[in-house]
């Protein structure tokens, strides 16, 4: 929703909250429901109300539990019945510097300051350990905003007695905890309050009157920031950044001004700003975000501009280059289709408001932020948190290579008349076996973001996936696919629960980047083999329809399963394993290295 996109009008969001909420709920979008417990050290009421808007906008329909006023510690260590029954999918510990109880005094000897630091950290570690043990779900924790006054002036920053120094050390310890614990995430209030302006952020009137951790008008910025982390945890990040060229990646119009006439490089301030933006995009790409071009230009001119010797980006940095005179919404839709992604995975960056408007209206769900003035481009993309990084798997870092290989495969496919001859020519090799610890992050990530080739769309937190991993009651398979163009990484996951002679398949998913490669047959072959070895006689699968998984509606039927039931939730299918013959003829299948 436009009103919730950076740069937003915070006052307007506060004032029109009810109307915005109504409009969001009226949108016809599929949302996942998530239960979020907010344990506060300060008032949480309006935080939750505004957070709801940003989450709805990100495709999450939240249900909230709020602790009684400032009961975060008690709720974590002695969870009340209501919180236990609520069974949160995520816990947000909303604390502030105002909740720090062991501040150093000027007269404290060094050991006393250390003790106080330790005591303060102990309090929070107890909270986290308590929550982890009871709830096994992701924890989102605020770090601390800097104090709003400095008793020692600038010395406050370095003297251990200074509150600024103390807060910095606490924040470092929080960061260390995040580094060491999966499923623990920071809401970086320290950065956010600086970005907003600490003096306004920490306006003491709001604490003293209403016990709010920040000034009222900062709540939308705060909620937006927290929502970025939450939607990233629940797999709602964008994946593609489609970029216009003229006056977006460089100043001027390459078709009119010629390559030598565009602003990019070190010549002047404007050229440097575009260069800085291109360098930023190169970093965005390194996160695994797919860059594409969507420009009204002759391709020849587009490539000439991208090959400008002073530019930071090269044509090879883009997965797809759409430089033509078609309407941009059509180019974006095609871009998504070619990458086997939904249009809503795309962010469209264009300096031209008319182009943004066409894309917004024709392709609801595509984000088209206000790119106004090259000096604001980075902040606009960055503050919108489209690509907020909570997990960073090996696959993310290699994603661009993998998609590039896909484009090459498509070209090769066109040269084969017979599809199975093409599949054989790919020289595919798969590793399909029980989970390995190094792949757990990727497996969890896949489970949380795969929507299309996903039979049940069951989601798992990191903690739940670890439980599955350590349990004897499951047959687990991950599948990794390599071919002559490159390594696709882990692309398929199957989890089945052994119930006597039956394996109940609670998750079957595959990344759309390996559609139509017979990888699903390879997975089925391995599953049948592993089940037979455990004495399982029947496979039972479920198909739960969603707005996005229509492509696998008939998957079990195509495998030869018989439909055994149907209810509101979906259909159930079974396949007896006696006499099972392997189906996959085009992939060489191996197991984990011993």
């Amino acid at each position, binding site marked *: 929703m436009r009103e919730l996109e950076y740069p937003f009008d915070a006052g307007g969001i*506060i*004032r029109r*909250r*009810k*109307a915005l909420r109504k409009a969001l709920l009226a949108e016809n979008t599929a949302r996942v429901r998530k239960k979020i417990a907010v344990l506060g050290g300060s008032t949480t009421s*309006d935080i939750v109300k505004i957070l709801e808007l940003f989450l709805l906008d990100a495709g999450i329909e939240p249900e909230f539990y709020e602790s009684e006023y400032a009961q975060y510690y008690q709720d974590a260590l002695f969870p009340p019945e209501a919180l236990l029954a609520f069974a949160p999918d995520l816990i947000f510990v909303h604390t502030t510097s105002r909740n720090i109880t062991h501040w150093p005094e000027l007269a404290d000897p060094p050991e006393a300051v250390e003790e106080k630091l330790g005591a303060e950290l102990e309090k929070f570690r107890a909270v986290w350990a308590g929550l982890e043990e009871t709830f096994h779900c992701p924890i989102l924790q605020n770090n601390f905003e800097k104090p709003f006054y400095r008793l020692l002036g600038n010395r406050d920053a370095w003297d251990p007695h200074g509150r600024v120094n103390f807060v910095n050390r606490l924040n470092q310890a929080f960061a260390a905890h995040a580094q060491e614990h999966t499923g623990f995430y920071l809401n970086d209030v320290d950065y956010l309050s600086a970005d907003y302006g600490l003096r306004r952020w920490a306006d003491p009137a709001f604490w003293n*009157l209403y016990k709010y951790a920040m000034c009222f008008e900062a709540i939308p910025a705060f909620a937006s920031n927290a929502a970025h982390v939450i939607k990233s945890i629940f797999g709602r990040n964008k994946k593609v950044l489609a970029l216009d060229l003229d006056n977006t990646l460089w100043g001027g119009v390459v078709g009119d001004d010629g390559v030598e006439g565009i602003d990019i490089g070190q010549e002047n301030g404007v050229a440097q700003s575009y260069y800085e933006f291109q360098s930023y995009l190169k970093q965005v790409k390194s996160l695994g975000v797919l860059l594409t071009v969507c420009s009204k230009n002759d391709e020849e001119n587009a490539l000439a501009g991208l090959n400008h010797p002073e530019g930071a980006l090269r044509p090879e940095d883009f997965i797809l280059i759409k430089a033509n005179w078609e309407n941009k919404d059509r180019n974006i839709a095609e871009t998504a289709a070619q990458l086997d992604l939904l249009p809503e995975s795309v962010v469209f960056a264009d300096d031209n408001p008319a182009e943004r408007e066409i894309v917004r209206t024709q392709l609801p769900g595509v984000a088209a932020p206000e790119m106004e003035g090259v000096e604001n481009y980075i902040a606009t993309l960055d503050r919108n948190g489209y690509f907020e990084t909570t997990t960073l798997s090996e696959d993310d870092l290699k994603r661009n290579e993998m998609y590039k290989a896909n484009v090459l495969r498509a070209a090769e496919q066109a040269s084969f008349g017979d599809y199975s001859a093409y599949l054989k020519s790919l020289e595919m090799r798969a590793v399909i076996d029980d989970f390995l610890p190094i792949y757990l992050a990727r497996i969890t990530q896949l489970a949380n973001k795969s929507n299309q080739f996903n039979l049940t769309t069951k989601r798992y937190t990191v903690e739940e996936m670890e439980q599955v991993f350590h349990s004897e009651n499951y047959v687990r398979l991950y599948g990794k696919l390599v071919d002559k163009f490159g390594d696709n990484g882990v692309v398929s996951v199957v989890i089945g629960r052994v119930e006597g002679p039956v394996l109940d398949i609670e998750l079957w998913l595959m990344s759309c980047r390996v559609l139509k490669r017979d990888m699903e047959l390879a997975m089925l072959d391995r599953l049948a083999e592993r089940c037979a070895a455990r004495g399982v006689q029947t496979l039972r699968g479920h198909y739960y329809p969603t707005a996005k998984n229509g492509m696998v509606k008939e998957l079990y039927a195509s495998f030869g399963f018989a439909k055994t039931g149907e209810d509101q939730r979906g259909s159930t299918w079974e396949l007896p394993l006696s006499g099972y013959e392997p189906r996959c003829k085009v992939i060489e299948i191996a197991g984990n290295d011993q």
Partner: protein
Amino acid sequence: MDMREIFTRLNRVFQEVFDDRSIRVGPDTTADDIDDWDSLEHITLISAVEQEFRMKFKMGEISGMRNVGEMAEIIAERAR
């Protein structure tokens, strides 16, 4: 800015905050007259009024206002 203009604008703010086009506020309107006007919504209201008139209430004023009329008087004084 005369009182009539202040009340017209206040009325619009109230309608937006409570998402209710039927609201009509007058000098004697209090929190008891509007269903959703509780202590939590009060903060939203104050913030929205401040934004509308580009002014800030002082801490003492926020807890001291007894009805919309008193709010309008502070606005009239501050907005001079």
